[in-house]
């Protein structure tokens, strides 16, 4: 099993890597034709006969969901005191050090931004972007443009320190690209600008799909506030909730505070109750009450139960999502119900069997259910190994020890009457036991 697993991982990584190497910025002929945006800014715009018209202020691209590389739609040119608009159709030569036009005569209109377009120098360079393949937040030090299939397109983003130094240096060295750390634009998600409210995240939906919840959580922690909102808004709600579950508690609290109460409550409602409770526990009493009042009733009740326990006890770390079966049910029926709860599969390590009084009889593992004949009834499966249980006030160290001793995948939390109230998975225990020296956020250091 283990061998198979690692082989799959390796081949997945390899295909991801190969995908990257085929990307356009790796192509040799494209590299030789890369135009550095930072180098182009301030360069002359010449008419057909070589007469100087003005200088480049910015390059405008159109965000296009169907394309990996946004096409350039025009150039903003400073002519005298005006910011004039020059459509790309009028451009003959798009070089590193100058732009030459087809004609001697151009109709120069005042520049005004259109919907779905972005000014690269003002809105994208020096701003945050998400490198989806690398699952990290980057800041663009430079952008590279290239002519592909007759169109000038935005093909890559430079995230290297070398390009920052190049931009600091004298103007004549600035035009030469220094592509030592370039990310292909096809794997980049970029954000709408603050100047255009409602500007949306520019990323292929499939790209975002590739990210694991943990990676998304890291990205959310690194992004600025507006960018974070956009990324969350672009995710399907259940993926957003998954990502939130993976976040550091302090980060989750910050995020909940930033959101409108209704949005925050909706996200909380979709999260696993134990993770939602962890986040809520860090909030002030008033804030917590407001948020909980706005949550869906069922989710609120589950979370409220958990909040009743201390944060570092079994009750505080357990999940209340339990799949309960009675001895008379058939295995087929139980499996069917499991299928209905697919979205919680990470939290369902087993199915608890209870008697008429609601007391715990056994804890069936997924393997037991998988191997059993569908027509057998649950009571035939009851038997050793008997479930490992703890009480809600058990300390994480105790739970960890129980898990290790019994070699079980999970422990069931039962109340004084032996009724199951929740389940604890190894990650819940590890979460509390591992020292969290995660990212450094210096403002938090003094708390």
């Amino acid at each position, binding site marked *: 099993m283990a061998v198979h697993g690692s082989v799959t991982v390796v081949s997945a990584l390899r295909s991801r890597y190969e995908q990257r190497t085929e990307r356009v910025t790796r192509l040799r002929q494209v590299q030789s034709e890369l135009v550095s945006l930072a180098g182009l800014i301030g360069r002359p715009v010449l008419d057909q006969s070589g007469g100087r018209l003005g200088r480049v202020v910015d390059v405008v691209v159109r965000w296009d969901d169907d394309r990996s590389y946004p096409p350039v739609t025009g150039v903003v040119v400073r002519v005298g005191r005006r910011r004039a608009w020059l459509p790309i159709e009028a451009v003959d030569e798009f070089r590193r050090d100058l732009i030459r036009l087809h004609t001697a005569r151009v109709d120069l209109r005042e520049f005004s931004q259109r919907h779905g377009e972005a000014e690269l120098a003002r809105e994208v360079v020096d701003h945050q972007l998400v490198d989806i393949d690398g699952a990290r937040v980057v800041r663009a030090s430079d952008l590279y443009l290239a002519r592909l299939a007759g169109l000038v397109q935005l093909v890559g983003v430079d995230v290297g320190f070398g390009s920052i130094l190049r931009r600091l240096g004298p103007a004549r060295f600035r035009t030469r690209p220094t592509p030592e750390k370039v990310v292909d634009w096809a794997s980049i998600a970029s954000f709408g600008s603050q100047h255009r409210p409602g500007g949306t995240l520019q990323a292929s939906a499939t790209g975002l799909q590739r990210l694991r919840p943990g990676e998304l959580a890291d990205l959310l922690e690194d992004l600025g506030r507006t960018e974070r909102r956009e990324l969350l808004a672009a995710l399907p709600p259940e993926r957003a909730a998954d990502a939130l579950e993976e976040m550091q508690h302090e980060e989750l609290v910050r995020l909940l505070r930033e959101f409108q109460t209704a949005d925050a409550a909706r996200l909380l409602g979709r999260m696993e109750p134990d993770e939602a409770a962890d986040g809520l526990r860090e909030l002030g009493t008033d804030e917590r009450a407001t948020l909980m009042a706005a949550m869906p009733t069922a989710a609120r009740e589950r979370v409220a139960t958990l909040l009743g326990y*201390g944060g570092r006890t079994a009750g505080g770390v357990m999940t209340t999502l339990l799949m309960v079966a009675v001895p008379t049910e058939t295995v087929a029926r139980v499996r069917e119900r499991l299928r209905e709860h697919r979205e919680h599969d990470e939290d369902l390590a087993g199915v608890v069997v209870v008697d008429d009084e609601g007391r715990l009889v056994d804890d069936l593992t997924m393997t037991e259910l998988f191997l059993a004949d569908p027509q057998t009834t649950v009571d035939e499966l009851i038997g050793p190994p008997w479930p490992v249980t703890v009480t809600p006030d058990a300390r994480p160290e105790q739970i960890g020890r129980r898990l290790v001793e019994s070699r079980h995948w999970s422990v069931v939390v039962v109340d004084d009457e032996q009724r199951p109230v929740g389940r604890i998975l190894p990650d819940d225990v590890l979460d509390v036991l591992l020292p969290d020296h995660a990212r450094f956020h210096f403002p938090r250091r*003094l708390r």
Partner: protein
Amino acid sequence: MTDLDEHAPAVPPRRRSLRRRMVLLLAFMGPGIIAANAGNDAGGIATYASAGALYGYRTLFAMVLVTVALVVVQEMCARLGAYTGQGLGALIREQFSIRVTAVALLALVVANVGLVVSEFAGIAAALELLHVSRYLSIPVAAIAIWALVVFGTYKYAERLFLILSLVFFAYPISAALSHPDLAQAGAQLIYPHFLLTQDFLLLVVALIGTTITPYMQFYVAAAVADRGIGPADYPKEKLDTVAGSIFCNVISIFIIIATAAAIKIRAPLESAKQAAQALTPVAGRFATQLFAIGLLGASALAAAIVPLSTAYAISEAAGAERSVSKSFRQAPLFLGLFTGQVFVGAAIALIPGNLITLLVRAQVLNGLITPILLTYVLVLANRRGLLGSAANGRAFRITATISVTAVGLLSAIVLAQFVLGIFGIG
């Protein structure tokens, strides 16, 4: 267990350990208070004590003006953090050209390296009071702090340092017990008073440098953004920031008063032992030890925080990985900057000389650089494109501009005097 409880899940009473309550208490203090209190570090104590020793109550009026400027500046930084949700490093990178950004970040690095030097000088001064040579204490402290941060066990040391530094809250009590000349102190507080000597101006610049530290501006913006404080919560945060700034300068003023009352001969401070006399009314013959403990805590705390915050701001602006849990290969810029500052700072602090003078000089350096970064803050807070309706209004803009200009003018005069001094003029 009673019958009533039988059907309810057992809910254990929520226990709160002393440690937890302590953390809660500190958390209750908002970023504004914490940031402003960071001003009362080694350099701050040395500068305020020097002011008290050398000029008695005469710097108090200057402190009032500094307080006004501090309130204005901290409020702008907190507002930038709340409305944009970003730290100053990122804001400057996004809002200014790359060269202008580089100037700001370079200024921050220089100012903060100065601060790191003063923190290590503070550690050395504190341990010299406890009879440990600085040639031993500084290298050991530098390696210890570096290792604590890089290997991720700093959190616990930090709490200890923070608690140690609370010693300085003894100053107001000490000031009250030392029977200061209240009439004179009160008069100097209200009555506009400036001495136009070079030394006095230098000290005022040091007071500005240690109170309106560039480091604190970056801190408060980042702290506000980091807590998820948004426009809706801002009025409360504003109150916290303003109150925090005033509160901390009141403490500073008490340090000046306590020292002025304890030291009768108006001369520059010779040693930390002299400065420690100001705590005699509270601690009697243990004043030196008490002072040493407080100074050690405050210095050690800031000796890690200041280089970390510089590395954080620069990495934030550069868009590089910023995390202490990453390896050098993963976060070369962040960890490189941190390491460089700690060891360069410690090396400079090792240069033989008077530690108190070194401490005050580092604050002068900060005071000279402060107006540069204040200009950035002012420009950002004026920008309607960035803050919308929360941008500085007219009256505020005038007040803020006057504050920044005054600080800048003072720095320019001191700098001019210094340059002229090199050429033997003035």
